[in-house]
């Protein structure tokens, strides 16, 4: 049996460690599954899948060298990651001319909209473009009394890319929006919350904050006496936020990607919990899902030629992926290429310390 190397670029140190680890684990679980079933059959050969994971320290220069090494030394044809815009943008100049398929998650539009026209790159998680609109609509329907929205935003690539889109969506539907940026890494938000509350906002929108920060914001907002609704559009992983906010998380509404009552999701969770301890990061299921999509495309192409695989991926619409179900590719309007995965998402509400599914949004 031959070995097929699959590349992973993930932040395994630095600010994005939590994201990087869950990316790597999501991919690994999917690869393990295939290997246990005897490997991947392509063009008459059976391959054992082996991951090669390199750290990008959530930094463009490191992502570049990691990509260079995966592409030119390890000779991989497929790379999962990195997560986050700096790494994704840093690695593009290596992977795209080399026709290496890359599956990233990061909010910067330039990831898909660039000089290579996004040829060999796919974004495998919803970005704000995909979910902002439906969420705002849902709020309008279910909570008509809300007039003013407040956002406290990390002043980094993620915040700066995501929030304008979200704010635009709110404004389009007639909401007043107040935003305030903070430096990544701050933990004390009370001053900003006091500031926000004097604006009389009805809805506190946690946007693209990392789960830990989101939890802190919920906790501190309640501690300073914020009585309105708190909701987060975007980000993944409600458990971590609940863990941080504790009892003060009651009633918190949050975007999420997995419905653990579905049997295929449950199966994945079981495997994850057996293999790793602690709370699962939201990117693990996203990348588990993505890996299966890619492997399916390879099977269908029955070739390791990346152009052929890419074409198959593009044609994969309707394939039942293990976590998100039917694959839908979008993005032509925004990025000029349909390489954006749109997947169903949920809004959960915290009740008795658990995230309960409130609604499922599939497609427009």
């Amino acid at each position, binding site marked *: 049996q031959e070995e097929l190397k699959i590349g992973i670029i993930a932040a395994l*140190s630095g*600010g994005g*460690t*939590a994201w990087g*680890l869950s990316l790597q684990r999501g991919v690994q679980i999917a690869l393990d599954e295939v290997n246990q079933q005897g490997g991947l059959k392509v063009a008459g050969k059976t391959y054992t899948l082996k991951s090669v994971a390199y750290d990008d320290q959530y930094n463009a220069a490191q992502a570049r060298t990691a990509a260079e090494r995966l592409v030119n030394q390890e000779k991989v044809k497929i790379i999962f990651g990195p997560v986050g815009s700096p790494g994704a943008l840093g690695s593009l100049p290596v992977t795209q001319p080399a026709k290496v398929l890359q599956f990233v998650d990061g909010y910067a539009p330039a990831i898909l909209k660039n000089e290579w026209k996004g040829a060999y790159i796919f974004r495998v998680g919803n970005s704000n473009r995909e979910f902002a609109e439906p969420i705002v609509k849902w709020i309008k329907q279910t909570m008509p009394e809300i007039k003013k929205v407040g956002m*406290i935003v990390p*002043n980094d690539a993620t915040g700066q890319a995501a929030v304008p889109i979200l704010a635009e969506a709110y404004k389009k539907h007639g909401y007043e929006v107040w935003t*305030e*940026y*903070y*430096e990544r*890494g*701050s*933990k*004390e938000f*009370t*001053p*900003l919350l*006091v*500031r926000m509350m*004097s604006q009389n906002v009805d809805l506190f929108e946690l946007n693209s904050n990392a*789960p*830990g920060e989101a*939890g*802190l914001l919920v906790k501190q907002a309640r*501690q*300073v*006496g914020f009585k309105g609704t708190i909701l987060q559009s975007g980000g993944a992983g409600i458990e*971590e936020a609940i*863990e*941080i*906010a*504790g*009892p003060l998380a009651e009633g918190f509404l949050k975007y999420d990607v997995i419905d653990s009552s579905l049997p295929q999701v449950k199966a994945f969770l079981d495997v994850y919990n057996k293999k*790793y*301890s*602690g*709370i699962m*990061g939201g990117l693990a299921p996203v990348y588990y899902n993505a890996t299966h999509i890619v492997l399916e495309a390879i099977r269908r192409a029955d070739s390791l030629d990346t152009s052929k695989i890419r074409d198959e991926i593009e044609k994969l619409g309707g394939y039942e992926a293990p976590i998100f179900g039917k694959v839908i590719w979008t993005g032509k309007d925004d990025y000029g290429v349909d390489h954006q995965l749109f997947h169903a998402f949920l809004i959960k509400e915290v009740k008795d310390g658990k995230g309960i599914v409130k609604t499922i949004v599939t497609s427009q």
Partner: protein
Amino acid sequence: MFSQTVLAQVIVNGIGLSSIYILVALGFTLLFGIMRVVNFAHGAFAMLGGYALYFVYGVWGVPYIIAAPAAALAVATSALVLERLVYRHFYQKMFQSMIGLLGLDMVLMFTAVLLWNAHERSVPPAISDILQIGGVIIPADKLLIAAVAMATLLAFYLFTHYTRYGLAMRAAAQDVEIAKAQGVNTATIYRLAFFIAIFMAALAGGFYAQTYALSPLMGERPLMMAFIVVILGGMGSIPGVALGGLLLGFSESFLSTFYGGSTSVFVSFGVVILLLIFRPWGLLGTPEE
């Protein structure tokens, strides 16, 4: 915007922030003052303090009054191994210590990632009451931290200025060889200072994790704040730590409430730079030759 309750809230937040900064900075300044060691692993010990409290209090349910000091004690005691293995190579070597301990910081942080994963968790609060006095909201745990910070500061000052060993520590900080010639066993003094410093870092880390969140990387920000507070106040000066901590805590609270988060960072960093330009040896430090 400038209503009385908001102003009062600003003050409450300022006290809360300052207390944490002061607690973290105290140990840092002690190590620097005495051993000329720039403890870039200080944040990692704060992180370990957080995990210790998480297990002792959060998981095993030991009463808080015992759990908080016991957790810090556990970290400080086990850190003595690192004192033997790592720190003693770096005493009186400022630059080498800076870089070497940066390495230690990495080791501790990523060992924690291996052991406990990178995700954030919370340590249950000691008291979750929220007091409300005339519209001002005061989480009771902030009061607790402020009280502990004040008591520690006072104890620290008294210790270094009015006890034999405190005096000996300061003397050893200035001239090790001559301190020995006064009958001071410097190895003991170093170990004592190290122990106290790590104890304080771990204690502060416990509070920090409890107020905010616990994760392997949580130490970076407290470390940065300690670094600023200590130098601003004047290296090795305990009243300097108090003043630096208060200044930074209050300006952060005030500025971010009234002018927003980014402005706050810009302005307070800018002010620290100006202060140092006009007082090049820190607010309460002494000029050196």
